[in-house]
């Protein structure tokens, strides 16, 4: 889960590996805030699988690659 300079750099880094998914840095920032913003809250509780999936979907991260087990 890395940040790269461009698509070209991702492709070179991947080499023969199967590509995963690529999103812009701002989408990652939005995802990070949605995913982690309650991590230190005193009333923190584990999220369900469906709650996590909803966070991904709200940010447009849908499809087989983003489907949680």
């Amino acid at each position, binding site marked *: 889960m890395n940040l790269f300079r*461009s698509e070209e750099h991702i492709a070179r880094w991947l080499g023969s590996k199967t590509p995963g998914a690529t999103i812009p840095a701002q989408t990652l920032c939005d995802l990070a805030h949605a*995913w982690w913003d309650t991590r230190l809250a005193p009333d923190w509780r584990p999220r369900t699988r469906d709650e996590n999936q909803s966070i991904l979907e709200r940010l447009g991260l849908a499809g087989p690659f983003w489907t949680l087990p």
Partner: protein
Amino acid sequence: MDASLLDLRNRTYAAFVELGRAPSAAELGDEDEVRAGWRQLHDAHALVLNPATDEIRMANPFSAVPSAYRVQADGRWWYANCAWDALGILAALAVDGRVESSCPDCGEPYAVEIRDRSVDRPDLLFHCLVPAAHWWDDIVFT
């Protein structure tokens, strides 16, 4: 997750933030009891232990060991487990800050400033190699 386990989890995270590093088991109470609780939290994906030492490896998004992602936030430098977690540290602490790393392909260093949940390097691209269904198969690799 029962109340005592939740309490241990919360005390572990609070100590991590207060100390700026992962707490040892002895710093949180009876060492054997804490380690037993941590193993349950590890199995629940609430934190990640180093399998060789049973010490904390990740209290996601925080990394207990140096990594390629350094985060300046809340007056300290932190290590993150990955790019997602680097921005997650700022989210968890609810502060602005700065992420420093380098392109995994060419090694060119970069810094990203985050203000009010916005990045100043929207040109950078995040690549997630492992599908979501397999993130926890090997979370350190993921």
